Structures are given as structure tokens and as C-alpha cells.
């Protein structure tokens, strides 16, 4: 169980770093340092994704969040003045701290009380093979059947959690096709919208 042990240790260390980094982001007076702390949190979250076998999501997290969003924020910080101690508290600081910690405990309580479905309760062996092990795909009268593979051979696929990229891709264009299109429209309208906002100022 050496693998699990290392994964657990990494998880606890990284979670600690995430919470520490998040606190730094919301308390730092220097906005630029806050932005850098934010990108640190993003990287740590990507590590959590890697630990959860979500390689694709982890890589996208680094690509989009660290490579684009936090660089954009750092870029924006350069344009505003009073960066070094520009991040001030409002007068509701204590109230919001109380509210947020209350919400935090409520969330923990709910998550502990709720009985979540567990992976252990799956009894279908083919499903387990499809999720984490090796499996065959057999197409049979319109639906695809998953069979557990006993011997390793070329036609064997890895489980959806081990090789998630393929499955994410296929579900994006089958189950989630319409949300995908909507996301595309949102991205384009955001692009055009932000350009329009900037250009309107330029004319004046």
C-alpha cells in the first residue's frame, strides 16, 4: 500500500497549502502578491486533480487558470495604482468572517450527515472493470457492452478514471453537446463584450 500512503501524504500537505494560500489571497494587502498566491492555489488544486485521476482537468486547470487567468489578473494589477497596500477591508469584515465560518460548519455538517453513494456499493463487475480496470467493448444491437478482460491484449481499453481524456471527449459531444455549444456562445459573447467595453472608452 505504498502508493496509497504517498498519495495520502501528498493530499494532506497540498490541502494544507491550498487553505494557507487561500487565506493569504484574501488577507494580503499587496494585490500583486495576492494574485501570485492565487496562482499558487491554482497549481495546488491542479495537483489535487492529478491525485483524483483527473489528469485532463488538472492540465486544463494549469493551462487556463495559471497560464491565462492569473496572468491576466497580474496584468490588470499593473494598471491600477496603489498596489502595495491597496487591498483594504470593508466595515463588515468581522460580520462576514462570522457568516463564512458559520456557512463552513453548516456545509461540513451536511456533508457528514448525508449518506453518499459509495463506489464500494457497485456490484456489477463489468462496471468496475470499466471504471478502474481493463475492459473490452462489445457492440451489440445498438448498445455497447462492457466486458471485463482477463488477459492483456491490444484491444483493451483502460478504465474511465485511468484514462479520462477519451471519455470526457466522448461525453462532451454526446451527453453534454448542448451545454458545450452554450459554453462556446458564452465565450464568444464574453470576448466580444469585453472588447466592446474597452473600445467604447477608447472613442471618448
Amino acid at each position, binding site marked *: 500500500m505504498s502508493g496509497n500512503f504517498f498519495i495520502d501524504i501528498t493530499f494532506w500537505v497540498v490541502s494544507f497549502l491550498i487553505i494557507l494560500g487561500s487565506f493569504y489571497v484574501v488577507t494580503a494587502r499587496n494585490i500583486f502578491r495576492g494574485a501570485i498566491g492565487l496562482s499558487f492555489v491554482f497549481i495546488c488544486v491542479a495537483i489535487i486533480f492529478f491525485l483524483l485521476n483527473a489528469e485532463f482537468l488538472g492540465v486544463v486547470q494549469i493551462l487556463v487558470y495559471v497560464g491565462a487567468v492569473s496572468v491576466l489578473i497580474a496584468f490588470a494589477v499593473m*494598471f491600477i495604482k496603489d498596489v502595495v497596500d491597496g487591498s483594504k477591508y470593508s466595515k463588515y469584515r468581522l460580520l462576514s468572517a462570522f457568516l463564512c465560518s458559520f456557512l463552513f460548519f453548516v456545509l461540513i455538517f451536511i456533508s457528514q450527515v448525508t449518506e453518499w453513494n459509495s463506489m464500494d456499493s457497485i456490484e456489477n463487475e463489468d462496471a468496475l472493470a470499466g471504471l478502474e480496470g481493463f475492459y473490452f467493448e462489445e457492440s451489440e444491437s445498438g448498445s455497447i457492452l462492457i466486458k471485463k478482460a482477463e488477459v492483456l491484449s491490444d484491444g483493451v481499453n483502460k478504465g474511465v478514471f485511468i484514462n479520462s481524456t477519451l471519455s470526457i471527449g466522448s461525453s462532451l459531444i454526446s451527453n453534454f453537446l448542448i451545454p458545450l455549444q452554450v459554453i462556446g456562445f458564452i465565450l464568444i459573447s464574453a470576448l466580444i463584450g469585453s472588447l466592446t467595453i*474597452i473600445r467604447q*472608452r*477608447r472613442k*471618448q
Partner: protein
Amino acid sequence: MPSTQPVTVNLGPQHPSTHGVFRMRVTFDGEEIVDVEPVFGYLHRGSEKLAEERTYTQVLTLTDRMDYVSSMLNNQSYILAVEKLANVEPSPRGVWLRMIASELQRIASHLVATGFLIQDLGALGTPLIYSMRQREYILDLFEMLCGARITNSYLRPGGVYMDAPEEFWPALDKVLLDVPHAFDELEELLSANEIIKSRTIGVSILSPESMVNASITGPMLRAGGVDWDLRHRNPYDFYDQINFHRPLHNSSDNFARFWVRIQEARESVKIIRQCIDKIEPGPVRPSFDEVPRLLRPPPGDVYSAIEGSKGELGFYLVSDGGIAPYRCHVRASSLINLTLLREMLIGELFNDLFVSFGSIDLNMGEVDR
């Protein structure tokens, strides 16, 4: 545009591409230049004041150090002024020799200017080294003539210091064969490269009117279509016996300036060939009986100008009858060509700042003197 605040940046005096020690306080709006304030004087050595303490021949060595990439031309301008002031009649062979030397220097200077354009555009030294290699051959010729490569002090009142050695003439022929090829190479580099063309054409345009008003001279003026060349308008030495074209361009942008320089260097090769044809044996300078080492010109003042590699290069000398000039003033072409720097740069991008600056082809030694 209110959306961004202008940023003022200090560029220089220690900056890799200010062609010396030059300082500019540039105000940017984003990447666009909105204001330029040139600050110079970091290389001021008081040459004009020092000239008042030296004899007329010794002042020659100061002129070498002014524009150190075209010292032969500085020498020529100064010597012409002294000859006019002291009524010296030069000997013909000396004049032909100094014409050859000064045209060679013009080629060398234009090679440096063109090489540094491509360097300023961001090429990593390869074009610069190619043009510098060609310049080396010309400097070798100077070494044969006078023993020095850069600070020559070759000319004397009435001619030159000494005659060219035997091996000079075949070497000169070889260089004259090579130089047009080098310029073909450079011109191809300049006018066939998409990046260079798109970065220089239409950048930093100056109108001929403004250039004439600012008394800008030299290749910069001729790139704007003004046909003004002192070798043609006011022939000094034996330039009236020589046929040459004056290349003109009409767009007055960075590309035109360098195109004009390259064509001009080609014309220089033709001028040198004509000089070689016309040169005849004889003394290279009058004897010391006619022109003594210690000149004492009669009181008076004189202004004499030549067409230098960067524009009109003039010397104003005042004599009080003594062995040293009472006052020596230089009309430095680099300094006067700098006057329109602000007009050239405003509205351009940061990337083009040093390209436009380099297209003036200035030399800090001459600007600050």
C-alpha cells in the same frame, strides 16, 4: 485618449543601442511614443575649446576624435578651412589622394550605418558583421596610407601627409571590386526581407519642408527628395571635374534613408575610379618653404563646409594672426540632424524608436564634441 496614463521612461545614457552615450526621456502611452526629450552632453570633451590651445596642424588630431567613424571627412573639412584661411594652394596629387581617402571613408561610414540599422531592427549581429568585414578592408587601406586605421590625421594643409605606397593601388582595386558586391548583398538583405521592409517603410516620415527648415542635410535630406549635395552645389577640391549621380528617394522614411546611403556608396566607388584615372605623379604637398609647419594665417575668419557622410560638415575658424585659431566652431551634421528627432518619433511605436534614431546615422562624438 484617457484610458491609459502616460509613462515616462529614461533611456540612456547607458543603453545598448543609443550609438554612444545619449539620453532620452521618452513618454509612452502604451507602446506609442507621445513625447521625447533628448538630453546630450555626456561625451562632451571640449574639442572646440581645446583647439584654441593648439597649432593649426595639431588641431587636426582633435577633429579625428569628433566623428570617429568618418574621421577622414572631418580632416578634409578642417583642412579645407585652414587652406582657405591661410591662402594655401594645394598640390594636385595631394588633392586627388585626399578625395580618394574621403570617398573611401564615406563608404565605410555608410557601411556602419546600414549595418547598425539591421542591428537596431533586432538581427543578432550577422548583417552588422558582414558590413563591418567590408569596412575592415577599407581600414586596411587607410593603414597603408598613414599607419592609422580610425584616427587617421592623414591630411595636411596643402595635401596629404605622404604619398600612397606601391601596394596601395592593387589593394584599392581589389576593394573597389568587392564593395559593390557587398552593397548588393546589403541591398538584397534590405529590400528582399519582408520583416525589414514592413518595419521600415512608412515609419518616421518627415516632410521635405520641415527638413529644410531645420537645416537637415545629407542622406537624410536626399531621402526626402531634396537634391542638395555640396559636392555638386559648391564643388570643393576637384569635385567639379567628376561626374556622379545624386541618388534621391521621395518617401523620406527609414527605408529611404538607408536606400539612399547604399546608392550613395555605389556612387562613391565610381568617384574613386575617376580619381584613379585622373591622378598624376607629383608632390603630395607643398614644400615646407611654401607652407611652413607652424602656420600663421592672416587675421580673419572663414567658414568652409564639405558634404560629409552624415550631412554638411563645416568648420568656422577665426584667426588673430597667431599660431592657434582664435575660435574654432564645428557645424556638426549629427547634432543638427537630431533637431527633428521629436517630430520623427512621436506617434511611432517603442520598437521603432531606436530604428528611427539610428536612421539619422548620428555619432555621439560629433554631437557632443
